[in-house]
């Protein structure tokens, strides 16, 4: 049972489109989700499914034009952030202060011609209204909090002097420097090598647990988040196709796409000779999406109702708020 009373971020019916030469790309097509205080959730899907765009839209970071938020509400601590202008003072006060983002590309996400310290100090002094010197000291503390050795010295380094893992730590430090209530980590480990990936995830988790920060992990890797997130939202072609507790999603997935995702990643609890099965076909073109289920062309379980009906809505399929958007009315576990 979820307790909606603790909700920190409540996204309702968010729609985001990009207007290109080829037509309107419905990158995010009516999605709703929520994050409780201190909760870790995951948004999972293939690249291009709209998961990153939906997160950027939360703090209105979409390049406009071509992007545009077409509708919905982003309610953060009771206030609808979409009511603020993209460059308004109110929106800027949220960014980096209340909600922080950690990006996929640590190599290019820091400005190459300013020192780490300068960039941290700038963010901290912008939000905390304190002197540069105090902001610098807070920056040193933030670096220490993400286990960077010699934080005073590292403040004077330029980004290119640090390894990818180190830079991602710096970005995490930036995210926690102003005591954000929510951190959105967009594929935080994808660009890193495998050993560093685990370190960064552990670091991120220990920090949010310690501080009671909420965390949204955006990833294509269901295996990665299974250990960390409490709930999972699965996205496909701009929509959420399944949501539920991590346990429910992993043990009794109800949407064929989720099943496909699970079969395509190795998991610890699997038999060691279990075969990995990739999902056949390509993600759909988001410009001329059919009215029918977007996953149907790739779906192994598609049947006549799928072809003749509009895309299925999310419906409750189990206890603990387990929802799936599929016409397949199979009993628990049967589609596996």
């Amino acid at each position, binding site marked *: 049972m979820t307790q909606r009373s603790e909700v920190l971020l409540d996204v309702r019916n968010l729609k985001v489109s990009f207007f290109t030469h080829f037509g309107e790309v419905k990158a995010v097509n009516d999605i709703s989700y929520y994050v409780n205080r201190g909760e870790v959730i995951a948004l999972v899907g293939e690249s291009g499914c709209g998961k990153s765009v939906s997160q950027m839209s939360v703090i209105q970071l979409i390049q406009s034009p071509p992007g545009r938020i077409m509708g919905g509400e982003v309610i953060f601590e009771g206030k609808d952030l979409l009511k603020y202008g993209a460059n308004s003072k109110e929106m800027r006060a949220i960014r980096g202060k209340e909600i922080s983002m950690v990006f996929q590309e640590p190599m290019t996400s820091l400005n190459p011609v300013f020192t780490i310290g300068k960039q941290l100090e700038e*963010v901290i002094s*912008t939000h905390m209204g304190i002197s540069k010197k105090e902001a610098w000291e807070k920056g040193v503390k933030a670096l220490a909090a993400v286990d960077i050795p010699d934080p005073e010295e590292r403040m004077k380094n330029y980004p290119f002097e640090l390894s990818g893992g180190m830079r991602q730590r710096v970005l995490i430090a930036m995210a926690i420097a102003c005591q954000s209530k929510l951190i959105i980590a967009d594929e935080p480990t994808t660009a890193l090598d495998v050993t560093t990936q685990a370190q960064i995830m552990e670091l991120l988790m220990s920090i949010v647990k310690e501080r009671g920060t909420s965390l949204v992990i955006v990833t294509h890797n269901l295996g990665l988040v299974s250990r960390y997130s409490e709930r999972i939202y699965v996205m496909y072609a701009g929509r959420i196709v399944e949501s539920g507790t991590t346990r429910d999603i992993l043990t009794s997935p109800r949407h064929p796409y989720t099943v496909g995702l699970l079969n395509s990643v190795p998991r610890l609890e699997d038999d060691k000779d279990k075969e990995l099965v990739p999902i056949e076909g390509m993600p759909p073109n988001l410009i001329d999406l059919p009215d029918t289920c977007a996953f149907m062309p790739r779906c192994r379980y598609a049947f006549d109702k799928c072809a003749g009906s509009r895309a299925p809505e999310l419906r409750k399929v189990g206890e603990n708020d387990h929802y799936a958007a599929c016409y397949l009315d199979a009993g628990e576990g049967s589609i596996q």
Partner: protein
Amino acid sequence: MNSLGAYTRNRILLSLFIIFAVSVFAFLIVHLMPGDPVRAVLGIEADEAAVQKMREELNLDKPFLTQYWLWMKGIFKGNFGRSLTLNTDVGELIGRRLPVTLSLTIPALIIAAIFGIIIGVICATNRGSIADQLLTVLVTIANGVPIFWIGIMMIYLFGVLLGWLPLMGYASPFESFVEYLRKAAMPVSILAIRPMAEIARQVRTNMLEVINQDYIRTARAYGLSERKVKYKYALKNALIPIVTLLALQARDVAGGSVLAEQVFSIAGMGQLIMISVLNRDFPVIQAIVLVITVIVVFVNLLLDISYGWLDPRIRMTARKVIN
């Protein structure tokens, strides 16, 4: 030695090599010129004894390498030789005319840089606006219009029709600054047009490229104001490569001064070289080529070093990546 030191040392060595090579080129001018330079000055009817005497005075009778050695030795002592036709010491001629040329080219470069950067930033931040489209037109025209013709048309417009500015001539800024401004306005403008357009175009391109970088998204995602994002975070990245472009423009403006001085009858280095070329006055030509190129190479060197100093990626590459 840190990497900026090594970078600086390499730049200095390259500059010294270029200056040496240019000195050889300048020296060779007299030998590559068609015809006998002495006869060209004295006339075909001049008697053999006079020709011989002048050859000796000019060291032209000595072996090739000795000639170069004597020429360079003289230059290091500040002796550029004597003009064949103007009956003046070349060093003195240059000393009188170089400040004139510098008082036109330096302001032209500064104006081009300042306005070029401002225009480039305005166009990049208002992409597709009327100002932005005008820049494309300006760049296209600036690259296609002969600056000597623009100069003449300006004289007609501002001098003849409107009567705002004197038609031509020059006044030293140290004698009468107002007169200098009035007389230098047009020549400085025609020298500034092309570099300004080039710099504006490059700044615009760089800004647009930088604005799409991940680190700009980071700055926005962390609540920095759009002003700070654009004019601090993006601008610094966009401007660093402009330093290199400035070096190129300095070189071209030095060449352009020949035209500006010719059009506006200004007694600077450019006019001097035209007079000397028409008179085949080789000691002057050699000295001008050498002096102007040395200045250009020196400016280039300074800009290269400041580029290395401005860009931390060059300044610090020798340090180890911290893991």
